[in-house]
């Protein structure tokens, strides 16, 4: 799910912008903190400088009093004062010694403070200033800047909270905006698969919110319209050719036939005429098959469709094709696993299975087997025809159902070479399913699922 979301540009963009925004908020808080800290430090430094200034102008006695007074006044206990002799001995104030690292140059600076420092108990950060007085004593003034630390902590807390909220909103918003896109892409994927399966009446769905996708889908749909139109034209053209040529061909055949009939039995031309007749018949068969397919494909009325018991149909079929199989040295058998009925046009189903049988017998070498199986449940009957012939390579299995696929190499095989396309047309008319796979007998297996799996057409 997340991987699928992550593929959506709007989702990635939303999350990215959320992240950047959160980063910007962090930066803003850092700036505020930095500015506040500077201001605070300046304030503290000013206080320190003022105090030192006051102290340094006082006399030695006044100094002690001033310091005592300052300490007494400092209720918050954030001020630290100390007067030390030149050797470092504490003379007055609340500092036991000169803090380490303090440079006695009269400039305020931050002092590193350890937790529970004995010098500055409870302080977190201290700014301090030290200078040597004119009499050689050392004056140290320091101030706890706990306030700054508090500000920093609340700033940090706020900063993280707000960044988290922004990120969360970003992800949620991304999901909200991208879920329709994910769904839309799934729909497109589904439609595209159906189109790839040969259903050119399918179109890519249009969404309501994903404009870029819609633009693309519309372009693809326009291409599909054109493809479908062209395919329809090719089909119509070939159907028309087949139809228009049938009449003159039939007449041609009639004249050949009449000539052949009127000829002397011993005439040498008789063989040639017989050959011409056979070839004309072959052509006519092929054209008839083409017309038949287009007839079935254009069939919209469903008058012949009714519940049909499949077992008698298959028994008649096996009986019909058995002599043909026997002549080719092929053993034809019928296996009844269950005896369901199907809602179909019995005559067309007969024709379809007949074509499958004809193919199977034609392509199975002598000594082989062809097996018709009726199985499945009452709701989902399955008829399969399997053989021990050479089969069809998996990559060609889809194309053999196409009308003109075998047109080239069908020349040497008897029949129209359009048998499987005819079967396919009948299957599609019913909305049934047809799958070609490997037969347990070693050759091809055609499995026809005789229940309505999709809208017929």
């Amino acid at each position, binding site marked *: 799910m997340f991987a699928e979301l992550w593929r959506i540009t709007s989702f990635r963009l939303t999350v990215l912008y959320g992240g950047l925004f959160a980063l910007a908020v962090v930066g803003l808080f850092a700036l505020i903190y930095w500015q506040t800290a500077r201001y605070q430090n300046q304030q503290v430094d000013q206080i320190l400088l003022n105090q030192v200034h006051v102290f340094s102008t006082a006399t030695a006695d006044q100094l002690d009093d001033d310091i005592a007074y300052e300490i007494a006044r400092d209720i918050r206990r954030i001020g630290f004062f100390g007067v030390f002799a030149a050797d470092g001995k504490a003379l007055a104030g609340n500092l036991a010694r000169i803090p380490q690292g303090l440079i006695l140059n009269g400039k305020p600076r931050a002092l590193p403070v350890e937790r529970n420092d004995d010098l500055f108990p409870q302080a977190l950060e201290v700014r301090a200033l030290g200078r040597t007085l004119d009499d050689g004593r050392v004056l140290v003034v320091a101030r706890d800047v706990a306030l700054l630390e508090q500000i920093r902590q609340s700033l940090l807390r706020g900063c993280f909270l707000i960044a988290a909220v922004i990120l969360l909103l970003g992800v949620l918003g991304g999901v909200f905006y991208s879920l329709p896109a994910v769904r839309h892409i799934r729909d497109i994927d589904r439609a595209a698969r159906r189109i790839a399966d040969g259903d050119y009446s399918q179109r890519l769905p249009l969404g309501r919110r994903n404009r870029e996708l819609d633009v693309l889908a519309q372009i693809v749909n326009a291409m599909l319209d054109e493809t479908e139109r062209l395919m329809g034209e090719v089909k119509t053209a070939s159907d028309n050719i087949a139809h228009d040529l049938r009449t003159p061909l039939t007449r041609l055949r009639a004249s050949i036939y009449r000539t052949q009939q009127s000829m002397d039995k011993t005439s040498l031309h008789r063989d040639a005429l017989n050959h011409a007749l056979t070839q004309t018949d072959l052509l006519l068969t092929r054209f008839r098959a083409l017309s038949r397919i287009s007839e079935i494909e254009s069939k919209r009325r469903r008058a012949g469709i009714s519940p049909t018991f499949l077992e008698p149909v298959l028994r008649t079929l096996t009986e019909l094709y058995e*002599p043909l199989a026997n*002549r080719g040295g092929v053993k034809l058998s019928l296996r009844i696993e269950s005896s369901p009925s199907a809602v179909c046009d019995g*005559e067309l189903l007969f024709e379809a299975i007949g074509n499958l049988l004809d193919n199977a017998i034609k392509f199975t070498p002598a000594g082989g087997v062809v097996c018709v199986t009726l199985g499945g449940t009452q709701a989902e009957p399955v008829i399969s025809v399997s053989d021990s012939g050479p089969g069809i390579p998996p990559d060609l299995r889809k194309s053999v159902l196409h009308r003109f696929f075998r047109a080239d190499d069908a020349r040497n095989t008897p029949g129209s070479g359009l048998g499987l396309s005819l079967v396919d047309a009948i299957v599609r008319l019913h909305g049934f399913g047809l799958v070609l796979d490997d037969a347990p007998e070693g050759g091809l297996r055609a499995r026809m699922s005789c229940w309505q799996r999709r809208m017929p057409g």
Partner: protein
Amino acid sequence: MSAMIDSQSASILVIEDDDSTAEEIVAELTAHAFRVDRAGTGRAGLMLALRGNYDVITLDRMLPDIDGLSVVGDLRARRIHTPVLMISALSDVDERVRGLRAGGDDYLTKPFASDEMAARVEVLLRRRAHAAEPTRLRVQGLQIDRVAHSASFDGHDLELKPTEYQLLDFLMRNSGQTLTRTMIFEHVWGYHFDPGTNLIEVHIAGLRKKLEQAGCPPLINTVRGSGYLFGDVR
């Protein structure tokens, strides 16, 4: 072959609006020594059919004025039972059913081979000639019992499968007439599609073999390029 038809001077009415198709039908039927009349419209055809005493009518399904289905319906309503061969460019199974239901006796799709058309006309003629068909048929010692659905040669029963019997029955009932593969497939198996060249051939071969094993002379003849013919043609 037409020499063997007993209804030698049969008269046939051709109702067909397309001139070239009509010419073809008339030429073929005339060649079979039938008397042929032609009507170009449904109305004219209907008038002729009502007046004249025809043995068979070939009727185009699509006519400019009255539809072929109405013509045959009208004829049947007036208790005229002349066999009608419907000829149509509509080859849909439903169309066939509709044509037969309206009262047509046989259905042929355009374009058709004229010998096939003639063969169908002859079968219709034969049906008319033997309105009440005998329960037994006998040709040169080969006999079928149409009630018991059994066949015998010289008194010995032949072991025939049901379809083999149906095949023999159809051939014998129409002996002396050319029967095309499509006609055989339609009558014996009851399906109306192109069964392919070999399918009927192997069934005929099987039947021939059984008859031959019983000592029966070869009575099933192949008519090259067309179909089969039952009878002694020597």
